């Protein structure tokens, strides 16, 4: 059976690096591992040592490791292809509103990610699939996007606007919608409205497929192991807290919250040796203050949210190769058994 490990957290906390590091560690522990990343830094891609594409590719040097990158636009086209008639698909992907709606829909990238991840899980080709989530809403979107997507294409509003049945290509708005449409005509222009309507009608034909798929994806997500990555920065922690509050409704409780870039607690209150250079003494003081702030933040979090807390030390340099990525996991403290 393929296990899913979903890594969430705010942007800029090192989530993608942690995902890659876990993947290297898991594959070296003997698991056939696929890591799916979102827009990694060039340096991380180089460190991982594999060219990342939309398709999972085996690592040339790590026999148990596969990697893929998430391409939100390409995935959306695939979603449309999967769930719409060929003729409708062509019209959809060429439609300016498809492009707009898919890029505007707040959970669009997350839905594409969730659908792609579910496809890999269904393939049963790996023991472990590690998914690095898009940064929007700290990863909550990733879990709620399938449901939102089904709502979007089958939503009550859409039904209300287009009438309960789909009358082919003919455009029939129902009567209660008329005042709104007149208003929209005046403000947006009639031509625009017709084109939107056409798009919405096409989109509706995908409803059955999308709704069914959304339920499958949701089942996968509910059984996935989740990990929340954060730093001790207030903004990143606000995201982590938001995730903790929203999570019980949509996924399993996180296996751990991982604090990244943690400074050594020994620095707190450490004395500089006598006769040290003033700059060095001052430097110790300011980093000790940082270490203190970090520890307080972790403790406060632990008191409010009963969960396993793991820490990864602050690396002086970002990992430059797979050895450094594996070492990052080894240096972690308090990480639960994830595979």
């Amino acid at each position, binding site marked *: 059976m393929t296990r899913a490990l979903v890594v969430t957290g705010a942007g800029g906390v090192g989530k993608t690096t942690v995902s890659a590091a876990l993947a290297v560690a898991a594959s070296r522990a003997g698991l056939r591992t696929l890591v799916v990343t979102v827009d990694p830094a060039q340096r991380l891609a180089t460190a991982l040592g594999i060219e990342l594409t939309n398709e999972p590719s085996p690592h040339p040097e790590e026999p148990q490791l596969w990697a893929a990158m998430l391409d939100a636009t390409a995935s959306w086209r695939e979603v449309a292809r999967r769930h719409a008639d060929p003729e409708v698909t062509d019209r959809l992907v060429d439609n300016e509103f498809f*492009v707009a709606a898919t890029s*505007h829909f707040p959970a669009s990238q997350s839905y594409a990610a969730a659908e792609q991840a579910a496809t890999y899980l269904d393939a049963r080709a790996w023991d472990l699939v590690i998914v690095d989530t898009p940064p929007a809403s700290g990863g909550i979107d990733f879990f709620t996007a399938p449901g939102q997507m089904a709502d979007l294409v089958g939503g009550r509003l859409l039904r209300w606007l287009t009438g309960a049945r789909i009358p082919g290509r003919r455009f029939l708005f129902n009567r209660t919608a008329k005042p709104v449409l007149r208003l929209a005509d005046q403000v*947006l222009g009639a031509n*625009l409205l017709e084109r939107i309507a056409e798009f919405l009608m096409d989109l509706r034909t995908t409803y059955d497929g999308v709704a069914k798929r959304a339920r499958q994806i949701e089942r996968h997500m509910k059984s996935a192991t989740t990990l929340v990555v954060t730093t001790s920065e207030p903004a990143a922690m606000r995201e982590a807290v938001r995730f903790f509050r929203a999570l019980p409704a949509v996924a399993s409780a996180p296996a751990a919250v991982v604090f990244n870039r943690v400074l050594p607690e020994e620095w707190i209150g450490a004395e500089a040796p006598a006769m040290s250079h003033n700059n060095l003494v001052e430097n110790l003081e300011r980093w000790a203050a940082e270490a203190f702030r970090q520890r307080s933040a972790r403790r406060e979090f632990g008191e409010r949210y009963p969960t396993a807390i793991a820490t990864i030390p602050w690396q002086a340099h*970002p990992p430059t190769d797979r050895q450094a990525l594996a070492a990052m996991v080894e240096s972690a403290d308090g990480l639960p058994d994830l595979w």
Partner: protein
Amino acid sequence: MTRLVLVSGKGGVGKSAVAAAYAFAAKRTGSRVLAVDMINAGSLGPHLGEPELSFTPRPVGDGLEALTIDRADALIEYLRVQIGVPALATIGPAARAFDALASTAPAVREVVTMGKVLWEVKKGTWDVVVADAPPTGQIGSFLRSPRSVRQLVATGRILDQVEWMDAILTDPALAQLVLVTLLEELPVVETTETQGWVLEEALVGDVTIVANRVLPALGTAVPEDDGPMVEAARLHQSLWSEQQEWATRLEIDLRLPYLFGTHTPPEVAERLADVLEEEP
């Protein structure tokens, strides 16, 4: 004449703190300032010392008011004030349905949000409007929205609005886009890319690059030793040289310091405002 400062940046670089700092710095010069949380992201309020902002401007100290843009409220106001749609048609289910419809059309949603910000600039109540803008990943569709609407909509009243909006945005004397970055790979790459297309498409009058959380130089050699002091020096030295390397990829207009230790969000904004104030 009202000046507009739009503060954007990659997620996690401290853009809301910097936006609050710009608001504080402007307030200290005696200006009447409005701070705007453009996409109701919720992190501007804490830095201003007022966690809960509303669509109606609310005072947050002398000479400074703040509001957050809720899209539904913004749409209703936009339809009423700018398009001239009577209030009756803009309430309740009709407005919600229109909101959903308008949101499907490219640029309409963004034009409504930009419209609110630029309306506050246009009406002349404030000397400075500081907006905590969407992150760099989304800012393009907001800045381009007046032009996108012009291309997309052949008729309709919304067309009349986009001319003056674009005129404000592209006037260097009126509008400034501040791109906040950290001196790390991803933010630097995203900042240079953003700066590139903003200038190429002439979307905003002026672009300012602000590097946040810049470390001071250690100012002495790291001893060959161990213990916390040396470890701290080693970490500092390597982070500092990392920052120096990424700094060469950008033309930085302003550097804001890394604030060590514990500060409340308003303290962070006030400290950064101190630095902004010293700058010309």
